[in-house]
């Protein structure tokens, strides 16, 4: 293929209003997204947008107009959920809640950073904590607790294995376990594909 064709010819077609993503927002009771007039107050307020390529308004406009590539975009993970946009939107759109919903939709399709997936699948599911203090690797933190006169483990799920089981049962019941399994499968498939491609290139 000619280099110039690859470089310069862009045939991206503007997808119209039958956005599947937009429908998911409407179904979740977040139809307020459709009232967005693109004033840019959100992007202007965004502390992340000032230092990354994340553009609050653009990301939501892409979702609204059916540009599904937004689900794979890493930029949507750079919102720090500071809620400043939420507080200032003149159309009273709960912007941060929209970004969170967008992330949910992305995760549903398997688009989640490996670090985040590990956090959910291994750390949170197994221990019930997001930042645990059990296990060999965390001994120094238990020692630190004791140095301040506190018991080595807090009275949380860390000392109540039945509570961990309860959380896991709830996560199964609400579909989180299935979601994580699906993503795990997808990620393994992707990794296998990538390995195969690397082999073929050699």
């Amino acid at each position, binding site marked *: 293929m000619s280099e110039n064709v690859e470089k310069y010819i862009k045939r991206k077609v503007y997808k119209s209003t039958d956005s599947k993503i937009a429908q998911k927002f409407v179904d979740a009771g977040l139809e307020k997204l459709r009232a967005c007039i693109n004033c840019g107050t959100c992007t202007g307020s965004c*502390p*992340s947008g000032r*230092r*990354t390529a994340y553009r609050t308004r653009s990301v939501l406009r892409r979702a609204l107009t059916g540009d599904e590539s937004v689900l794979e975009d890493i930029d949507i*993970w*750079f*919102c*720090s*959920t*500071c*809620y*400043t946009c*939420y*507080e200032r939107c003149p159309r009273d759109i*709960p912007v941060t809640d929209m970004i*969170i*919903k967008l*992330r*949910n939709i992305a*995760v549903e399709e398997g688009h*989640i950073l490996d*670090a*985040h997936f590990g*956090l*959910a699948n291994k750390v*949170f599911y197994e221990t*019930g*904590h*997001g*930042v*645990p*203090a059990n296990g060999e690797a*965390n001994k*120094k*933190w238990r*020692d*630190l*607790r004791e*140095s*301040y*006169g*506190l018991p080595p483990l*807090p*009275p*949380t*799920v860390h000392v*109540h294995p*039945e*509570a*961990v089981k*309860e*959380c896991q*049962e*709830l*996560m199964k*019941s*609400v*579909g*989180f376990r299935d*979601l994580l399994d699906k993503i795990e499968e997808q990620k393994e498939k992707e990794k296998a594909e990538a390995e195969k491609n690397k082999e073929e290139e050699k």
Partner: protein
Amino acid sequence: MSEESKRKYGFFLGCVTPNRYPMIEASIRAVFDHVGVEIMELEGASCCPAPGVFRAFHIPTWLVIAARNITIAEEMGVDIITGCNGCYGTLRDAWVELEHEHELKKMVNEHLAKVGREFKGSIEPKHVVQVLYKDLGIEFLRGFVKHKFNDLKVAVHYGCHIVKPSDKRPWGGECEDPTFLDEIVEITGAKSIDYQDKFQCCGAGGAVRTAVKEISADFSREKLENMRNAGADIIIDCCPFCHLQMDLGQMEANTIYKDMVGEPYKIPVIYITQLLGLAFGIDPSLLGLMKNHDLKGVSPFIPLEPFLEKVKEQLT
């Protein structure tokens, strides 16, 4: 205060406080004990779950686990008190949402029923600062002040989730320019200084820190630069994740952005109850300010010595 009228709260610990910054936990316990408030344990509580990561992955899971944590306090009949903006954000947002959306409440209770629990909405999740400012009150706290600073410039960092979303917070809609944390700081005699972008996010939350650390480090670098330019002696915060971001994050900013930063930042990071406890005359070792171990690679990462010297000079 008699036993009946003694205020009681269920202490929601979360993750970062007990497992990475236990000095914050120690100082909260010490201060509330000192003012006669009973802190009860919420046995078997889990991660709140962290709003930035887990809510972003699957909202129903976040809602159900948050509701479970609330039911632990409901069974004890006490309001929840938490010292973390993230946990406060989760528990409070979940509480408000479930109160208003009957369909959601029904859905959540269907799952909770499988483990013998039921969300009723009978208790209120509160933040440590909310209890200090609203339940106890500034005048009440002022009564406990024994020593006052006379020359301590504090860069107060509120963080985000203690004030926003403002429609689910108890501050009457104020979120652009709150003053309640500054007021608490100033009863200790310290001066809360103005600095550029005082209310900007620390950058830890929203899954940013766990996604790309360099981005969150740039958030802290910017805040630290503004705080340094304004002449801050210390940073005061009310959230362990902000605390982590300004403490461990200060070290990260110094290394990752070495060239931009120039002279490395070394501003001690102090939690609000640590400062308050000092003014109340509580022993610093009970407030997690004294290091009595020689563990490596643990908090605090920015030495507290410059602050402790000021404490010695001004408070005795």
